[in-house]
């Protein structure tokens, strides 16, 4: 069945579209026809998400024309995910009511847009959302939020489905299901994907648009084998010869007793009145013992890590020993955080302050979001070395929020590594990164694992993103 919908094709003619002071799409010539399935690809910051957004009318057209803007698109992207989280944050009236808000229930989030109860029921089953329906949307894990977003977009009967990073944040069990689902949907609804990794390009994609710094460099039909090989090469750039900048010689971290474990968690549980996340969990991490943590969305990976970082309030009623402190004996959260470098989606969403990109990296020395202490010369020097590695040396003074999501993630990874912490926690660090940035990040992590200063805990869903040097595994289940 081909659903009736309003998409008659879209034509960009020499379109220049401005998004903010530092980013515009330039001279875009692009024609999308009904029946095609497009994937936009390119490096972080090349304008992939911007081009997808331009299709729905975002940005300011400064010259050229765009005909056939898709007004009623269903969008699944980091931005729409962040927008929904932000909306929920604004709906939280606890600042003015002095009541602690529970947030909108997931069920309501789905019902408010759904125009197809039958499909809604099917997707709830497919994504195993049943148990989450009465929970507040804000309490869902990042992978679960993503599934809600998919369900919202598909059940709203859109004229086009736009998915920016279709498999980002999904656990391994869910990836094939989403692949199947999209394949099926692609025969019914016009679809546009933004793909960060070449190995994630679904079979059913018919055309690729390759972007480079705001220009549409080329378009390729996936049936054209030669052109595809070339594209693949372009996207797999090699990263060699990286040297990690040193720690700050002026402010060495307090030393730890090597005889003690770094982290020792005994019989831990995290529970809410209506939900048990996990219980009877033991975990002992010795210095130099690198770990990979796996588990499906919602199995409590982030909760467990937050027990270690001190960001989960239930760390105080569990038996947790970290960096020489038995938690809940008068130590402050900053005593703990000084030993940790951390990157995760929730950190990314919390990092909403006005700050330039150099200071984002420096804030890693102080474990702060934003920078509230004057940096030393050596810290600035180290931050500049990191910017060099990331290729941002010319953008040191640029505002963090003007960077693309993928580039922001790179900066936050550098922030986590900058002080050579005793424990480096990387919770899906490659979320939203393109191939090149991912190679870079994986290489950086391998270098850190090979060194002796930091012990690494690594969370990821991609079987391909194995890291040499990590040989301990903890798998959480539902």
């Amino acid at each position, binding site marked *: 069945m081909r659903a009736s919908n309003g998409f008659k094709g879209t034509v960009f003619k020499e379109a220049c579209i401005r998004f903010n002071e530092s980013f515009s799409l330039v001279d875009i010539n692009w024609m999308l026809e009904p029946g095609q399935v497009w994937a936009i690809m390119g490096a972080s910051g090349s304008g992939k998400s911007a081009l997808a957004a331009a299709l729905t009318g975002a940005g300011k057209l400064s010259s050229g024309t765009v005909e056939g803007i898709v007004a009623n698109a269903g969008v699944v992207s980091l931005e729409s995910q962040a927008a929904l989280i932000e909306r929920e944050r604004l709906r939280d009236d606890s600042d003015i009511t002095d009541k602690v808000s529970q947030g909108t229930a997931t069920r309501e989030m789905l019902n408010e847009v759904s125009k197809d109860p039958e499909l809604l029921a099917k997707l709830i089953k497919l994504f195993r959302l049943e148990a989450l329906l009465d929970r507040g949307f804000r309490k869902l894990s990042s992978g679960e939020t993503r599934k809600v977003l998919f369900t919202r977009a598909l059940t709203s009967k859109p004229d086009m489905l736009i998915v920016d990073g279709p498999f980002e944040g999904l656990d391994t069990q869910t990836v094939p299901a989403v692949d199947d689902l999209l394949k099926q949907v692609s025969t019914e609804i016009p679809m546009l994907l933004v793909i960060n990794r070449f190995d994630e390009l679904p079979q059913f994609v018919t055309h690729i648009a390759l972007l480079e710094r705001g220009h549409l460099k080329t378009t390729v039909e996936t049936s054209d084998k030669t052109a595809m090989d070339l594209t693949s090469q372009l996207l797999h750039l090699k990263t060699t010869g990286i040297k990690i900048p040193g720690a700050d010689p002026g402010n060495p971290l307090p030393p730890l007793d090597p005889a003690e474990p770094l982290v020792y968690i005994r019989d831990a549980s995290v529970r809410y009145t209506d939900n048990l996340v996990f219980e009877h969990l033991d975990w002992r991490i010795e210095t130099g013992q690198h770990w990979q943590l796996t588990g499906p969305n919602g199995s409590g990976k982030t909760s467990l890590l937050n027990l270690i970082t001190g960001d989960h309030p239930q760390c105080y*009623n569990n038996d947790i020993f970290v960096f020489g402190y038995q938690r809940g004996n008068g130590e402050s959260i900053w005593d703990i955080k000084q030993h940790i470098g951390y990157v995760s989606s929730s950190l990314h969403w919390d990092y909403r302050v006005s700050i*330039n990109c150099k200071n984002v990296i420096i804030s890693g020395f102080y474990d702060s979001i934003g920078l*509230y202490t004057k940096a030393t010369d050596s810290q600035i020097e180290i931050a500049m070395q990191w910017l060099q590695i990331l290729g941002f040396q010319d953008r040191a003074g640029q505002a963090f929020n003007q960077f693309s999501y993928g580039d922001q993630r790179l900066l936050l990874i550098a922030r986590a590594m900058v002080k050579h912490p005793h424990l480096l926690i990387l919770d899906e660090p490659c979320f939203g990164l393109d191939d090149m940035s991912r190679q870079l990040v994986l290489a950086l992590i391998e270098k850190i694992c090979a060194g002796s200063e930091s012990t690494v805990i690594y969370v990821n869903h991609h079987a391909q993103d194995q890291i040499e040097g990590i040989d301990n595994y903890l798998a959480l289940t539902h």
Partner: protein
Amino acid sequence: MANYFNTLPLREQLAQLGKCEFMDPAEFTDGVTYLKGKKLVVIGCGSQGLNQGLNLRDSGLDVSYALREAAIKDQRQSWKNATENGFTVGTPEELIPGADLVLNLTPDKQHSGVVAGVVPLMKKDACLAYSHGFNIVEEGMQVRPDITVIMVAPKCPGTEVREEYKRGFGVPTLIAVHEDNDPHGDGLAIAKAYAAGTGGHKAGVLMSSFIAEVKSDLMGEQTILCGMLQTGSLLCFDKMVEKGIEPGYAAKLVQIGWETITEALKHGGITNMMDRLSNPAKIKAFELSEELKVIMRPLYNKHMDDIMAGRFSAGMMEDWANDDAKLLGWRKETGETAFEKTENTETDIAEQEYFDHGILMVAMVRAGVELAFETMTAAGIKEESAYYESLHETPLIANTIARKKLYEMNATISDTAEYGCYLYNHACLPLLSDFMTQIDTDVIGRGLQLPDSGVDNQQLIEVNSTVRSHPVESIGATLRGYMSAMKRIN
């Protein structure tokens, strides 16, 4: 209980009112040490109660929550909030006797009852903390003489108190010691450690008194903060509709306009807010605000006088005793105004348009802020307090209106603020009726639409200099400077 302020001799009244100074960050180098190992028990698990507790615990302090037995037995929301966050929860009978510091973070209105119930359970020489001094100053609550009574009042909503702490920063905080209850002379040490535990010391702490806090807080909230914004909303909306502007546009211009305009205020004071206007519009706004200041000054004086004399609180407490009859009636009235009932247009209004089409609103904000500030300082309140209770808080209330309009804004601010807001509104509406007859859409709704925005140089210089040399601007620049010196490092 008698009004405490009124029992003091004038000399003492003036001394207390005149207390408010910015504390040197070096006074906080000991952090929370003074409270280390002490038992802190919080009463009230709302947004302030929960979030302050989370911060204090993350600073290494021992925090638990006393909830009523029924709340624990029925597993009410307050019980869930505390237990899901890993806190020990118990009844007051179980927890208060062991407490070294009891944090009363319940709403104003419950203070008398809460304090009367809790104090008998407190051990000898313990400390009781408030975050607002109404109960002590206006209701004249007398606390057992062996107990130390302090105040720690973060000048932001609870969620922000937590958010800023997690970032590694804090929110500006006011502290005070009730001198009649400082038997061991360590009230200040406790208040400083408590403020440090919430992260307040990183953003700046003001040392004040219970009296200065209460009198300035009441004055600010009923005049510029809630009163002026309510009266201004109703007048501006009705005028636009009368002059044929589409009601949906008028409603949005007003509702979102306050927030947009006062965002400029937050960053750079009245000066920056006025600078967002074109030169001719700025001159127009200046002239209107000068006129408004003359008309409204007697009303601001009356509010200040009633607050100082205790007439305001006496009147309001009468209404409390009468089941809030007046308050609820007035609240209902607000819900039925045309502004409240009109749906906003879906059409976007550009950020600059809120200024260009809202010249009268800018004038009202300038007049209200300056009048409140002038009236407070003339009554002996320090400039620092007057700044925080006028200019600093205006964007916070404007933000509430942007989300909730007036009815909800009023229902959600404290009942004390709401009661005062209605008193102001009822007096201010008739006071401005003549003034409003001369108003047209050039200053509210459509903008000046001049073919040429030239102005007379001398006139512009005079306007700029009057705006910039107002004392609220110099103290504002200093206080914002402290904040940003700490906050924005480039």
